[in-house]
Structures are given as structure tokens and as C-alpha cells.
């Protein structure tokens, strides 16, 4: 039996999925910008701003549904989770934007700074993986992927600690590189964090349990 709230929930869901796809796109583009020196920073900026306004739109729509329909149980958890996930996706977009001109702003290049013993490439791959898995999990509402996301995050975390240590022990010659690399791994780690928040919201949406990955 379809209910009044279903239309609203569908709209919210489609907005969120669009955001998810855009987030993935933004991150991939930002990686290319920073590592390959692609001159697409403006595009990344626009994507990021779109993500922020999308999350605001989702928040507004969600609030409207709360006010009008007094939803309970799974509906309530869905709306609550969507609001959080939208915020987390927007944060990821914001970090992606920073990442896109991280080397550019200091007038250095990725190639100069990316020393072979820094796991930057691996981290980027894992971040791509974690974001992709997140979006997939949201689309399919797949609880199984939540654990996987936790695993990937732990990997990224390890690599982050490793990077910090290496930057202290065997830093690149240019100070600018040290700063840029540091910021880079920091942002990557933060994106991964937000990805786990998204996974936790998903778990709450589906099972009602609040977990900490």
C-alpha cells in the first residue's frame, strides 16, 4: 500500500544516489588533477559546491518530511541516515577539492614530491575503493559491504600512520613537498573516515543498531 510519505522518500533517495555518483566523480577527477597536473580545478570546485548545495537540499527535504509525516521506525531512521550521509558526502567533496590543487598551490608537482616509499598511490586506490563500495552499499542497501568498508578504512589508517612516520624519518627535500604530502595523506584519511561514517549510518538505517567501525 503506497503512502503519502513514499513519494518524498523516493525523491530523497534519488537525490542521495545522484550525490553519491557525483562524489565518486569528484574524487577521481581531483586525484587526476593533483597527480597528473590536469587543469580542471574549477570543475572540481563546481562539483564540490554542487555537492554542498545538494546536501542542503536533502536536509531541507528531510526536514519537510519529518514535519509533515511524523515518520517512525524505518522511515525515521532512513531520513535521519540520509541527512547524515549527505553531509558526509559533501565533506568528501570538500576534501576532494582541496586535494585537487594541493601541489599546484605551492607550485610544485606530484612527481617531485611523491617519493616511492610513501604509499600515496596505494592510499588513493584504497580511497577510490572505499568510496565506490560506499556508493554501492547505499544503492543496494547491502549490509555485507559495511564490514568491507571497515576493513578498507583500517588499511588506509595503517598507511596513514606509515606515511606520517616516513615523512618524519625520510622526508622529501623540499619543505613545500613535506607540507603538501602531509596535507594530502591527511585529506585522504579524512575521506576514509567519512566513508566509515556513511557505512555506520547505513547500518543504523537497516538494522537500527549504532555501531563504531
Amino acid at each position, binding site marked *: *500500500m503506497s*503512502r503519502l510519505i513514499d513519494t518524498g522518500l523516493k525523491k530523497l533517495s534519488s537525490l542521495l544516489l545522484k550525490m553519491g555518483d557525483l562524489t565518486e566523480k569528484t574524487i577521481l577527477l581531483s586525484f587526476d588533477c593533483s597527480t597528473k597536473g590536469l587543469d580542471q580545478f574549477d570543475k572540481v570546485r563546481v562539483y564540490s559546491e554542487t555537492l554542498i548545495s545538494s546536501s542542503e537540499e536533502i536536509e531541507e527535504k528531510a526536514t519537510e518530511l519529518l514535519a509533515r509525516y511524523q*515518520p*517512525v*521506525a524505518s*522511515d525515521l*531512521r532512513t531520513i535521519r541516515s540520509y541527512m547524515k550521509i549527505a553531509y558526509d558526502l559533501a565533506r568528501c567533496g570538500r576534501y576532494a577539492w582541496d586535494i585537487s590543487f594541493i601541489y599546484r598551490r605551492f607550485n610544485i608537482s606530484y612527481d617531485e614530491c611523491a617519493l616511492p616509499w610513501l604509499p600515496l598511490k596505494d592510499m588513493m586506490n584504497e580511497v577510490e575503493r572505499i568510496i565506490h563500495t560506499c556508493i554501492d552499499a547505499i544503492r543496494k542497501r547491502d549490509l555485507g559491504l559495511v564490514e568491507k568498508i571497515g576493513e578498507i578504512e583500517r588499511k588506509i589508517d595503517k598507511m596513514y600512520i606509515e606515511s606520517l612516520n616516513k615523512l618524519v624519518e625520510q622526508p622529501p627535500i623540499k619543505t613545500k613537498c613535506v607540507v603538501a604530502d602531509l596535507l594530502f595523506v591527511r585529506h585522504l584519511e579524512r575521506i576514509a573516515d567519512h566513508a566509515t561514517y556513511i557505512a555506520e549510518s547505513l547500518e543504523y538505517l537497516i*538494522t*537500527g543498531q549504532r555501531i563504531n567501525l
Partner: protein
Amino acid sequence: MEGDMMSFKVQVESLNAWFRDRQVLKKINMQINEKAVTAIIGPSGCGKTTFIRCVNRMHELVPGARVSGKIFLDGEDIYAKGTDAVKIRRKIGMVFQKPNPFPTMSVYDNVAAGLKLNGVKDRKRLDGVVKESLKSAELWDEVKNDFDKSGASLSGGQQQRLCIARALAVEPELILMDEPCSALDPSATARIERLMRNLSKDYTVVVVTHNMQQAARVSDYTGFLYLGQLIEFAQTRAIFENPRNKLTENYITGRFG
């Protein structure tokens, strides 16, 4: 087990009820906490009114009605052989869907009815009880200058509060409310809901409602009845945030009923 039973105000064990040969309640087991509001929700015909009437032994007044099982009020089975139903009803107050003050009695007499009809004559005592009850029912200020006014001349919301005062006057162990706000407008409803929460500081309240939002607003515990069975019973916040049973989830999100 004996010790456990004492900590709940009402303990329902394997309650079954019939109207002639139609079974309306099926093996209900429930524990009602003291000094809390418990809401019973469910679609029409699920047996929630019958349930509440079994608790004060009013169900058996209908010709052809039958009950089996036990209900312990403060540890004593009200359906035990030899128990006087009239005495049980004196311990339990009931408020009905449509406010039903005695039409030929004044406000004062209505509130005092329970006591007067049971033989209390001491004027001072009656005055005291009437005042306390009207205050607890939040009706005192509106009638204190005019006790002799007929009970039926009050507004709907006031009449319902009068009925609540009447129920409180006999100092019940338990207060049962059968959809008390169905016949009232939203602001009268809001007043009664607030009153229910205040009453729960001193009394155990069980309210039957078909309005889920009301159950969510007003109660500490909620029981979901469907086709005569208790499907789920839990703290209200748990039921409305994350119900365990799919049927409960479908009902409270409006997917049926």
C-alpha cells in the same frame, strides 16, 4: 518468580477472551509497569478494547462473553475463584471514549459519585476528595466557583476531565483509558495527553488508542495487538525507532491498518 510478579503493577498471563464462540484475545502475556503510561495500539478489531475491559472485569458483563487466564493486580489474581468483580472494579478507574458524566448530577456530585454510591457520607471527606481530584484532573480552576452546575453542561474536553476526576476520586490502583481523546478536538486532546503524563507520576495508566502519534507522545511502553495477539511489547522509544517485528513495523509506518 513470585518476586518478579510483585515488581509489575499488572501481570497478564495467558489471557483469552471470547464473544460467544468467537475468540477475540489469544494467549496474551503482558507486564505493566508501575507509575508509567502504557499504550496499547493496533488496527480496529484487534481486541484492544476487549483487553482493557478484561483488566477491570467489565468484559464479562456482556452476554455471551467469556474470559480465561490470569491477571495479577499487585500480585493478586483478579480472576481467582471467589473474587468479587465489583471490588476489583472499585480499585480500577476507567475513562471511556465518549465522556459520560452522570447527566442528572452536578459537577460535585459527579466527582463524588464513586464514593457516595459506596456509602461515604462524611461531607468534609467528600469535599476534600472532590477538590483533590478536580485539581489532579486539571479541572479545578474552571469549576471551582460553580460546583452545582450540571455535569452535562461542560464542554467535551471538560467533561472528559470530569470523568477523569471521578475516576481519581476513588483512589484507584490503576487507571484505564479507552481512546479517551477520540471525541475531542485537538486542543482538548493535547490537554488530556499532558494530564496523562502528569498522572503517571502517581498512578499506573494504561491507554488504548488508535492514534499512533498519541501513543508515541504519551506513553513509556507500547504494546501492539493484532488479531487478538500481542505482537510486540517494548519501551515506546524502541518500538517507534526500531521495532523488532515486521508486522509492528508495517503497522506503525502505515503500510496497513
